[in-house]
């Protein structure tokens, strides 16, 4: 039931001239324009590479560069393994198995997503540090003193790997689960009639089918690792991001800092190439449109306990424990934060995150769809470049946004002063527009990866069918793809929303006067080592993030093919064969 479809996307509209590049279509032009605008900040930074900075660069090479490279690579490797080991198995468990608490776990496993990495790092350090409650209790119980026992050092490279893994595995989990849920039951049933047990179906059928989604999730997590500043800075681990800051400001050499950023970007290119390469050999599409509810494997005994433990552990460590510690601190410091100001903070944060998510997903859809409709090397490169911002630290993006915006404002202002004698001042700099632009640049990759993964699973014959019935490309998108991709789109919205909620560096430097967000508040206090006082803002980030996480999780679950019937019947698990779901006019073409 799996075919290796033609490696070309659906055919472009018929043109008088042969060849794809001969006459760029409207989709291609739009995609390249959007991509160029979004790539501007990254390109601006990249342009600094050509400014010579020989002396500082050789100083870096002699002293810190090796360490930056080694630590960043180790961090990538550790977190990469970590998010896969946690994310994929739990996604499989909650998607196709039945065990106590499964319904709760399927959304609870997303919760750590709402936890900013630097906050979880601060929280665990507060708890596990030598002077923290855990070790103090241990010393009191055993009567041992410093140096007389071994305790893992939280502020280490391994500690950073753990912290980042705990908050980043949901990327892999979310995308992989969405992929499992969208898989046709026929594929799995065939694998089972051919004699595969549950493990073999997983390893040989479901996992390969979900591979694009797994890799997309992994790529997102790894790019996030490369851009992380807060955690590694607090743990004192020299990586590319801390190096960029230090070189830019401490050594006062933006050119050398940009060259570091360029090396960082080359890491990203390698990641992207690896991802492409892993997908190159085959594109999998379901040929069957017969979706029906998947019978779940019912786990019993120790297997059920193991499944519960496997799902509980990441939620406990990545969410419940830190959230509890934050709550304790928040209650202790309540007089510091219970005021109307706080409501305004929550509103600002929510508003920005919702806006940025809507824009980022819309643009991602345009780009991904353009690739599908009128693919070709130019569009492909443009789309890749537009997504680069995700691996670039927020501050660097912010500077990349400020440079062209300020240039535009000041040039326009000069022209107006010369011609009309009026000053237009700053039109773009210091507005929410600049901030939203930076968010989209930074987080487009999140929506793009998700949307592409979703779009890639829709077989091209669907497009052909729609087109042969006379539907234009835009119509195909809105009437065929969007309804099928509902779950994917919501996932993309959720991911960007939560990312913006947590975003700090770009917000800090680009926001207008008297405009704060929860992340800014949490950072100001945590950065000044008032951890307990920052807890209320950190907790609010988590809570504001929680609502959409739960809502969207339910929607994603419902978006599963065949799920609507199940919801009506209410006892889907026992039903081996469900009526085939064919949502209005989309399937069965």
């Amino acid at each position, binding site marked *: 039931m799996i075919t290796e479809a033609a490696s070309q996307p659906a055919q472009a509209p018929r043109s008088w001239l042969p060849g794809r590049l001969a006459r760029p279509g409207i989709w291609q032009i739009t995609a390249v324009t959007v991509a160029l605008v979004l790539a501007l900040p990254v390109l601006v930074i990249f342009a600094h590479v050509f400014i010579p900075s020989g002396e500082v660069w050789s100083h870096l090479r002699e002293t810190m560069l090796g360490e930056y490279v080694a630590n960043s690579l180790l961090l990538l490797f550790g977190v990469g393994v970590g998010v896969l080991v946690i994310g994929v198995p739990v996604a499989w468990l909650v998607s196709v198995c039945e065990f106590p608490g499964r319904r709760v776990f399927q959304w609870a496993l997303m919760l750590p997503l709402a936890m900013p990495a630097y906050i979880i790092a601060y929280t665990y350090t507060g708890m596990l540090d030598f002077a923290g409650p855990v070790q103090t209790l241990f010393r009191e119980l055993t009567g041992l003193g410093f140096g007389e026992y071994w305790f893992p050092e939280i502020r280490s490279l391994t500690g950073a790997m753990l912290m980042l893994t705990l908050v980043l595995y949901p990327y892999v989990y979310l995308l992989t689960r969405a992929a499992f849920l969208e898989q046709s039951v026929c594929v799995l049933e065939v694998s089972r009639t051919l004699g595969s047990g549950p493990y073999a179906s997983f390893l040989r059928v479901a996992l390969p089918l979900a591979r694009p989604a797994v890799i997309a999730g992994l790529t997102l997590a790894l790019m996030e690792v490369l851009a992380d500043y807060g955690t590694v800075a607090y743990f004192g681990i020299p990586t590319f991001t801390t190096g960029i800051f230090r070189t830019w400001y401490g050594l006062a050499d933006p050119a050398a800092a940009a060259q570091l950023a360029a090396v960082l970007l080359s890491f990203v290119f390698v990641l992207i190439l690896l991802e492409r390469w892993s997908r190159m050999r085959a594109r999998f599409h379901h040929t069957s449109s017969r979706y029906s509810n998947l019978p779940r494997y019912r786990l019993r005994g120790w297997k059920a306990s193991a499944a519960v433990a496997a799902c509980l552990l990441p939620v406990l460590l990545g969410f419940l424990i830190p959230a509890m510690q934050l709550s304790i601190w928040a209650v202790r410091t309540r007089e510091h934060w219970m005021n109307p100001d706080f409501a305004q903070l929550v509103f600002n944060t929510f508003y920005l995150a919702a806006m940025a998510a809507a824009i980022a997903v819309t643009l991602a859809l345009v780009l991904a769809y353009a690739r599908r409709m009128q693919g070709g090397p130019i569009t492909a490169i443009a789309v890749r470049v537009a997504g680069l911002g995700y691996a670039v630290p927020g501050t660097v993006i912010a500077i990349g946004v400020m440079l062209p915006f300020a240039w535009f404002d000041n040039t326009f202002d000069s022209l107006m002063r010369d011609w009309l004698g009026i000053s237009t001042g700053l039109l773009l700099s210091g*507005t929410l527009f600049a901030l939203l632009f930076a968010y989209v640049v930074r987080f487009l990759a999140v929506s793009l990866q998700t949307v592409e993964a979703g779009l890639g699973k829709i077989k091209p014959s669907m497009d052909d069918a729609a087109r042969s019935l006379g539907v234009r490309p835009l119509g195909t998108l809105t009437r065929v793809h969007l309804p099928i991709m509902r779950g994917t789109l919501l996932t993309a919205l959720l991911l960007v929303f939560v990312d913006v909620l947590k975003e700090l560096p770009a917000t800090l430097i680009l926001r207008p006067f008297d405009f704060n967000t929860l992340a800014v*508040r949490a950072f100001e206090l945590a950065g000044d080592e008032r951890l307990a006082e920052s807890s209320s803002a950190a907790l609010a980030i988590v809570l504001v993030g929680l609502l959409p996480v739960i809502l969207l999780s339910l929607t994603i679950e419902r978006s599963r093919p065949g799920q609507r019937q199940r919801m009506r019947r209410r006892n889907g698990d026992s039903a081996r064969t469900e009526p085939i779901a064919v949502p209005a006019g989309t399937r069965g073409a």
Partner: protein
Amino acid sequence: MFRNSLRLLGIAALGAAIGLPVSASADGEVNVYSARQENLIKPLLDDFTRDTGITVNLLTGRADELLQRLRLEGRNSPADVLITVDAGNLHQAKEAEVLSPVDSPVLNERIPENFRDVDGHWYGLSLRARPIMYNKDTVDPSELSTYEALTDPKWRGRICIRSSSNIYNQSLVASMIASNGTEATSEWAEGLVANFARPPQGGDTDQIRAAAAGVCDIAIANTYYLGGMLAGDDPEQRAVAEQIGVFFPNQDGRGTHVNISGAGVTAHAPNPGNGVQLIEYLTGEEAQRWYAEVNQEYPVRPEVPTSETLQSLGDFKADSLNLSLLGQYNAEAVRIMDRAGWR
């Protein structure tokens, strides 16, 4: 329906983003870029508005980035006043020509010469010292003398200090370059690194806690962190802080390293008069006392009393180095620490 709501959201987003007004600067306003975080400046700004009727618009952020923004915005920048928490940043702002000279007899009279810029580009608002802190159980203060003496092998594996990426350490090392020269400071940094109890990690409070817990015996940290722990309402923090003694080094020589938080009026300030008025207000007696009581900083005006907590740490002689030099030697300091392996 989903599609429509998506489209609506998108349109709303663009509309709202573009429609939002740029912060205008009318009369009776002053716009502040502050590296001093909101809760440590807003109360004073509110008082200023109450007393003068001038509205204050505030943007907080990291000093380097605010400076970058100021530089890029150029002559159209809405900012009137830049506030930072390190003299090095103020010096860099002056070098970047984003500050304008202020000639205020009030400020010149109130603020000692070494805590303000020669040309009036910036003025100090509050002081903080970076002394040696020690565990009272394991260290006898008579063993301590100067920053330089911390490289003595007897301190091997006993010193805690935060990362060299931190501006306070960069300024400390810059002050040593200014008085001892590059070569001696390089040797000193290597000697200090050899005596580290652990790779640098965490903030100043973490160093104090580590010294109290016995991870190390000596921590180098800013006074207000310890002051905050002593004066705060968390009994656990207070208990930790009480195990720590403060030693002000180099009393027979140049004095203990101090730094300032300070402010300057920007080069293209739309409301320069209000800016000067604000800085004068921040050096007023009431504001000065506020720094001391709320954030445990030393007032920049010698005649204003410090808080009881700070008084309990004792008087000391502060390094009288011209603080502009901290900014001048900043990059050199970072290189020295890079080479010494001070992470």
